[in-house]
């Protein structure tokens, strides 16, 4: 590959394993399903 004359040196301190991957159509994070509130009281038939 012909890439021409050297012009600059970069020192990239980031490790490839730590670098974020490019966001090519990355799926959106899944939302955790919310739990339905559990009723604390319930109606009971009471003899009066």
């Amino acid at each position: 590959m012909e890439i021409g004359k050297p012009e600059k040196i970069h020192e990239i301190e980031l490790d490839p394993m730590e670098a974020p991957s490019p966001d090519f159509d990355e799926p959106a994070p899944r939302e955790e399903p919310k739990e339905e509130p559990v009723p604390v009281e319930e109606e009971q038939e009471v003899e009066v």
Partner: protein
Amino acid sequence: MKKKLKIDLRTSYPPIPLVLSNKPIVGYRGWGLTPGCKLESVSVNYVWEHPILRNNKKPIIYDGRQRFQLDRNLFGFYAFKEPNFKLYYVPVLGKVSLFGTVIEHADGYRGQNVRVDHLFLLRIDDETELKRQVDSLSKTYDCEVMVRDKGKEGLNKVIAYYKYMEGESSASP
């Protein structure tokens, strides 16, 4: 009497600025494809076995006076700056990120470490084989693999795609 001189090629010739950064450098390149569906360099005999490749030897600047033994990967992983591929005939084109010591040249880079980020595979007539190649590349290199059509038009679409994605990423904060 001959004197032995130690030459620091990174600073002595030519005087090249050093830039420290914690952001990878993005480049574009082409590959051949082995029968086992692995990427291989076009101009040297080297198979890309993994999505991330590391080189213990830092790339150095060739100053025209010293001759270096052409050791495996001595000169680093190559990539072009722009996705204006001239290697339209190779079966795979793609985008990489470069890490570690990276020498910036006029038209491209030579990096110490590299990661494959995205691939475009050339379309072949056998759909079953094409699917096998896409699946295999995607699994080996842990990245998205898209298919490009043959000819200049297919190549132009690849260039347009990468330029569009480049614009998108530079627009984001």
